């Protein structure tokens, strides 16, 4: 069972199957327990463009678009502490995400802001979701990390290293693309743009200062 309800919270526990995500819809709020790996620009490029094998198994697990602040505890034995971690703009990974999901089999992508068709098609075709964690909340996110299990591709430097974490009730995660391919931000933007045009017209009537 990969979806648990505890204290009214819906918690996805890795490994997660496509079937587990079937009833999760855009706008839902969920949490994640288990395997979460930070993965951003260059790691996506290595997997998709360079064809390199990702050294952390993210199949049926989760990735986080983020560049954390890490403190070494015992770096010779690979021990690190997560000080501060928050999502970065997911849109930068949009270009790679269809192929990334296809190749790696990742189920949950966490980041900031919306993504577009490459990602929503991947979510629909391969059974995955994209979620946002409210940004600017780096301490809330860091304290959900129980342990940094391993660090790979460390040649990329602290922000870009694949930090494979064991997390407990990481969230809140707001589902922005579901496995049917519905896209929360893209649907919202239609509303926002309509109301924006109305407001521009309304305000313009009251600021005719040049006469």
């Amino acid at each position: 069972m990969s979806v648990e309800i505890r204290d009214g919270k819906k918690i996805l526990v890795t490994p997660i199957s496509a079937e587990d995500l079937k009833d999760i819809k855009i706008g839902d709020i969920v949490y994640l327990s288990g395997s979460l790996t930070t993965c951003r620009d260059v790691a996506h490029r290595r997997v998709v463009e360079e064809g390199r094998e990702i050294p952390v198994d993210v199949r049926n697990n989760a990735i986080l678009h983020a560049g954390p602040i890490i403190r070494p505890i015992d770096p010779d034995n690979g021990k690190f502490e997560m000080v501060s971690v928050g999502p970065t703009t997911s849109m930068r990974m949009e270009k790679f995400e269809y192929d990334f999901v296809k190749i790696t089999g990742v189920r949950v992508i966490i980041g900031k802001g919306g993504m577009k068709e490459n990602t929503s098609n991947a979510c629909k075709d391969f059974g995955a979701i994209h979620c946002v964690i409210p940004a600017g909340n780096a301490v809330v996110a860091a304290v959900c990390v129980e342990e940094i299990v391993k660090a790979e591709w460390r040649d990329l430097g602290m922000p870009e290293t694949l930090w494979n974490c064991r997390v407990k009730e990481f969230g809140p995660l707001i589902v922005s693309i579901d496995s049917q391919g519905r896209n929360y931000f893209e649907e919202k933007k239609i509303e926002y743009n309509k109301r924006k045009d109305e407001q521009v017209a309304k305000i313009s009537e009251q600021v005719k200062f040049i006469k």
Partner: protein
Amino acid sequence: MTQVEKMTDMIAKFVGHTAKKLPDDVIAKLQELRAKEDSPMAKVIYDTMFRNQELAVKLDRPSCQDTGVLQFWVKCGTKFPLIDDLEALLKEAVIKATFETPLRHNSVETFDEYNTGKNVGKGTPTVFWDIVPHSDKCEIYTYMAGGGCTLPGYAMVLMPGEGYEGVTKFVLDRMTTYGLNACPPLLVGVGVATSVETAALLSKKALMRPIGSHNPNERAAKMEKLLEDGINAIGLGPQGMGGNYAVMGVNIENTARHPSAIGVAVNVGCWSHRRGHIIFDKDLNCEVLSHSGVKF
């Protein structure tokens, strides 16, 4: 300890404090907006934000991992004894704060494209100078300009025929394209002036004004209110995910303009608006106006 060392330490400590605790006016405004949201999603987002700010103080960590590029707007009296040393000591204070707080390394040298690892570089921290004649005081605004809220920044010159209607469209267009990803509720700074650089600088200085303050010009103040209500009515809400309030305020700063041009710029501060305001006298006695309870 020399006076230069003393002021360096005080600035470093104050900058570190602003990474962990938001200014009083921002906290008060976020509390007000939190109470006025009714959707379950907006409530969860605000609960997370307030829990994060409590944990940041409790665990003594920066509340957001992006501690930005440091920017200082200095209003320095010509008789302030450390005026000659100020720019160098601000840079030193940023290096000190970077290791003590700790702050993320956010200074990448352009063209050579490497991170200096010290959070300072050519021209960073940014220092905006205003010289105040016949004064021996030094007033400093500190600001952590994070990547997310720097991205929506935009300036252009409109033709007078576009008028303030054009200014309105310029600002609102930016909110629905970039603003929603810049961590609303935002503080929106607008510069209305004579060229791109005058408008751009004013749009940043506008973000240093306290929330709830108004432009002294009656029409400009009216436009601040119209834009605030208008952006809220778009419904972006917290984090751009929908809700009743998307801004903490709109601050407009202005100058006169060339008859043929309206320079306009917009700059935004995210909900985690890490602005500090401190005033030193000639003996380095200081008063902190942005944050209550700061001790040196």
